Each structure stands twice: as structure tokens, then as C-alpha cells.
């Protein structure tokens, strides 16, 4: 019984994942190589060439998605790191309150949050109307339907996923180690670049994983805040599936996206694996 216990513990979660993740994925993989349409049904023809076709057809959207994901991740790091370090080092007794504030947007629906950004950034909305009437920006200036709006929305929606892991990593840094750096003639800047930053890199690493993946696959922000020039691969998948009913194309796109991100993540982990990150920082 004792030897079985670990396996019994993994059983519910394992079954859950098997039924709700693995089974649909196998099903989707099977659909991706079928041919046909919604009226006449789909037939399995092992049409593998569809993968090459979708990649060629939607190359722009793939590249754009990865580009938006990278840009959003970079902006998130720049915004999240100072916030996380402020909470970790200066938060004092109110740390949990500040963390709750960081998480507060999650209490509002994802779509609703993004829609409210649309109101905020509209051409004559709360932000632009006063600026326009004051003559600070020209009358035809707009934010919606631009790359900036989409990346801004992505960053806004996924920022907490960057703040939390960085906070956890910084929280674990022993303050005496920072004192030791100062004691060994490190200026504030050197103590940060040589000690605090390298020790917090595992948190940044986790944050990148947790934001880059959903950002790249996102379709809500591009759909609500972007224009036709901002279509991401997620929007294409959504359209193919729900509007065109082209299940094989949608499935093939999904798997291609997954492959692109897995390759990217593994390359990233290989190049900047946690252990190597530390090694590099110590030099």
C-alpha cells in the first residue's frame, strides 16, 4: 500500500489530463489530416501536406504572433521587475496586500477587461478626447487598431504572470547575501547586477514561460484592440474553426503553433537554462 501511495495520488490528476488533454489532442491530430467539409463530413486521408500549406499561407500571422509575444514579454519584464522587487524588498508587512492588488484584475473577466481598454483608448475615449481637445495630439491620432494597442493589451492582461514568479525569486534572496556584496565593496548597482539579478533569473525564466506562451497564442487582444493589420494566428484559428468550419486547417494551425512555441521554449531553455544562467552571471 505504501509503495502504491504515490501512484494513487497521481491517479486523479493523471486521469484528468489523459481524458481532457491527451484524448482531445489525439482527436485534433487526427482531424488535422482529414479532408472534407462540415456539410458532407470529414474523411481521414492522412493529408500531411496541409502542415506545409498552412505554414506558407499564414506565415505573416505566425511571425507577427511570435513578434508580439516577444515584444509583450520584453515589456512585461521591464514593467514587472521593478514592481516585484519593490514588493519583495520594500513591501514590509503589507506584502500580501500588494500581491492582492497585482492579482486584482484577475477578478474581472478577461474579455471584459480588454473591452474596457477599448473604451479607454477609443478615438474619442477617456484618454484621447481630453488630449485632442487640448490640442496635444492631432485630431486623427488613434491608438486602437494599432500594434501598440495589441501589445499594450497583451502586457496588461499577462503582467501578473511575470510579476509573481519574479517576486517569489526575489523574496528568496537572503538579505544578508546582499549585505555581504555591499560589505565586499559592491556599489548598489554592482550588488544588483552581480548578486540580486543573477539570483532572480530563475524567476524571470519562469515568468517568460508563463507570459510568452499565452501571449503568442492570444486572440482576444488582437480581436478587440487590433485591426486587420494586427491579426494573430489565434484569430485565424478561431475564424477557421468557428466561422469557416475548416476543422483540418484550424487543427493543423494549432499543432503548428504548438510546435513553434515548444521549439522556441526548448531553444530558450537550452541557451539560458537556469543553471547556465547562474553560471554566466557569476563571471
Amino acid at each position, binding site marked *: 500500500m505504501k509503495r502504491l501511495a504515490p501512484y494513487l495520488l497521481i491517479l486523479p490528476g493523471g486521469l484528468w489530463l489523459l481524458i481532457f488533454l491527451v484524448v482531445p489532442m489525439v482527436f485534433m491530430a487526427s482531424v488535422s489530416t482529414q479532408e472534407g467539409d462540415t456539410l458532407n463530413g470529414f474523411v481521414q486521408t492522412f493529408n500531411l501536406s496541409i502542415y506545409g500549406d498552412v505554414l506558407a499561407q499564414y506565415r505573416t500571422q505566425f511571425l507577427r504572433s511570435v513578434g508580439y509575444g516577444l515584444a509583450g514579454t520584453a515589456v512585461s519584464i521591464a514593467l514587472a521587475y521593478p514592481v516585484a522587487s519593490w514588493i519583495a524588498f520594500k513591501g514590509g508587512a503589507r506584502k500580501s496586500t500588494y500581491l492582492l492588488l497585482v492579482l486584482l484584475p484577475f477578478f474581472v473577466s478577461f474579455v471584459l477587461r480588454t473591452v474596457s481598454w477599448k473604451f479607454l483608448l477609443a478615438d474619442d475615449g477617456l484618454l484621447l478626447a481630453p488630449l485632442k481637445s487640448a490640442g496635444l495630439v492631432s485630431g486623427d491620432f488613434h491608438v486602437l487598431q494599432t500594434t501598440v494597442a495589441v501589445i499594450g493589451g497583451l502586457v496588461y492582461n499577462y503582467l501578473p504572470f511575470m510579476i509573481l514568479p519574479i517576486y517569489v525569486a526575489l523574496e528568496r534572496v*537572503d538579505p544578508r547575501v546582499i*549585505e*555581504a556584496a*555591499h*560589505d*565586499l*565593496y*559592491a556599489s548598489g548597482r554592482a550588488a544588483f547586477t552581480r548578486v540580486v539579478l543573477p539570483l532572480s533569473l530563475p524567476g524571470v525564466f519562469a515568468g517568460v514561460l508563463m507570459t510568452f506562451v499565452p501571449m503568442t497564442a492570444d486572440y482576444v487582444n488582437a480581436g478587440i484592440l487590433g485591426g486587420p493589420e494586427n491579426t494573430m494566428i489565434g484569430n485565424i484559428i478561431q475564424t477557421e474553426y468557428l466561422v469557416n468550419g475548416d476543422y483540418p486547417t484550424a487543427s493543423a494551425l494549432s499543432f503548428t503553433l504548438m510546435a513553434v512555441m515548444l521549439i522556441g521554449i526548448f531553444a530558450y531553455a537550452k541557451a539560458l537554462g537556469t543553471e547556465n544562467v547562474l553560471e554566466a552571471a557569476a563571471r
Partner: protein
Amino acid sequence: MTQTQAGAEAVAATCDSSSAPAIELDGVVKEYLAHGEVVQAVKGVTLTIAEGEFFSLLGPSGCGKTTTMRVIAGFEDPSRGTVRLHGHDVTGVPPNKRDVNMVFQSYALFPHMNVWENVAFGLKRRKVDRAEIRRRVGEMLEIVDLAGREKRRPREMSGGQQQRVALARALVNNPRALLLDEPLGALDLKLRQAMQIELKRIQREVGITFVYVTHDQSEALTMSDRIAVMNDGLVEQLASPREIYERPATAFVAGFIGTSNLLKGVVDRVASGCAVLRVGQESRVLVAESPGREGELLTITVRPEKITISAEEPEGEVSAVRGTVREVVYLGLYNSYTVALADGAEVTVFQQNALDSTSTAERGDAVWLSWQPRHSYAIGR
């Protein structure tokens, strides 16, 4: 590494006064605000630590010894008072601009760096050239017996090894003073004793001033040239280990350092610098160099190993106190007797277990305790 090389450091320019004491604290007070109340962790410490001295700050936890050290290191700014290093006022100077280094209680090694990188950290920050860094780090690892372990990470090492890395990391910078905050606290007894001897050897070898914070009195007695015994934010006594042990200035010092007996008595008469105290009916205590006058109530302290136990009343110019043996504990090297006096006070006596030992007082025996006048020491009134 020699002292002359230290002079070549960038800091040399600020260290022209070689005759000035290494560290001077003048009326240092440190106050904290805790739950809206001002708490004084250090209540006015003035002390001078000489160049090359092994100086200990000894006291129970919360006595202000660590705060005092952090003031010297620059991690805390004193609320009042000044800190001078080699005659230069460094009050308010940040730790990275002070030529003192610290060995932290839990070592605080950089977990993401190997031994070599840890030790070279300070030299790199001061832009020492690479060949020089290689030479000095190599030499220092030799001194702390860690040569060949340069590539190890701190977490791959034992506590004793980490301790030596911490020591090397601080010493390699050739600081004007090394501050050690309970550095042996986390080690087991055997290793701690070995490290005490090791620390003392290293200190002699490098000739650097050591300021050692500890709550372990035997550690302080073993290693120090001088000890400041601290209690409740103040220095109770500042003297050599022998002086502190033999002549504790206050009841606190007497109680904190080793085992001590406190006896109270009224001065009966003073003759040729020696006071005779009446303690109960038949007992007398002789105190050499007594500050007391006739009729005055004095508290004296006497160490357990200075007392002789006997069945008959002792003769001559010695203290003689009557009592009954309450407890005998065999401790191998010596026996520990607890003797109750007529007034209920208890006296601890250590008698060495020599081969020819004939003193075999048993529980319940009526005995006499005697000791030389110079072993009675009147403590602060």
C-alpha cells in the same frame, strides 16, 4: 600577504595615521522604532580596539553586540555618537566604502558563484588586476586549506568548509579590521573547537584586527586578547579574558562568565588592606584589595575551583565558611559540590580528581570551605 601590501591598496591614501587605534566607538547609541516605541539596542558604547588585536564582544542575545558590530561595518548608522577607523570619522560612510570586512553568522556566501568567484568578489569590485587577483585568491585558499576546491559551489560544501570560504572571502581583501558575527555558531562542538584554534592561527598569520561577536563565553576566553562583556546595550566590563574571569566587575559578568558564587556580608574590620566580612554566625570571608569600609554591606564573588573543602576548620589568613553538602556530582575531571550555608545561600565547589585526592565529602556532611583572600573579589555596589 603582508601589511605592506595592504598599504598599496586604494584605501592607503586614507590610512595615513598608522598609530591611531584600528576602531574607536565614541558614545554610540542605536535606537529603533518598534511598534511606535523607541527601543535602544545600544545605549552608549565607548571603546577602543587596537591594531592587530583579537577583540570580542560577548553577551547574551539581545545585548546589543551584533548591532554594535553592524554599526562598525556600516550597515547601521548610529543614532548618536561617532565611529572612527584608524582615526578617521566614518560615521555615515556606507559599508562598501569602509575598509572593514565581515564574516556573517550564516556565512551569506553567494550561492550562484563557486568558491573562487566568492573569494575574488571583493578584489574584482576594487578593480585589482587579474594576475594579482589570481595570486591573492590562490594564497588565501591555501591559508584556509581549501586549495583544489575552487570550482565547488557553496551548497556542495560542509558547514566548516563554507565557514572557511566566508573567512577567505573577507580576509583576501586585506581589510583594516575583520568583523566576525558568531561565525562558529552553526558548527558542531568538535569542529567549533578546531576552528577556534584555526581562527587564532590565521589571525596571527595575517596580523589583522579581529572583532569577534559571540554569546559563547568559552569561545571568547579562548581566543581574545580583550573582551567587552555587553548586557542590555551597555559594556559591563572591558578587560583581558583573565581579568574578566578572575575579577568580574559586576554580578552580571560574574554570572555570565563561567560558574560563580556570590556571597553577601557586612565588613567587620579592615586590616592591612584586607577586609574581613561576617557571613552568618561562624563564617568569615577575607577580601584582599577591598573597597569596603567597616559596617558596609559587600557582595563578593569567588570561583568554584578556588575553594577547598575540608572537614576541620581551616587555619590561617583564609576565608572560612561553614556549610552542609547538598549534592555531589562526579564530572570526570572534577567533582562538583553544592554546599548550603546557614543562611540558605548555596555555594558551588569544584575539586579536581587528583590521584591522591582524599577529600571525599559525602552528601549531608558538615564541611568547611576555605579560600585565599585574593580569590574573593568585591563586585560593583
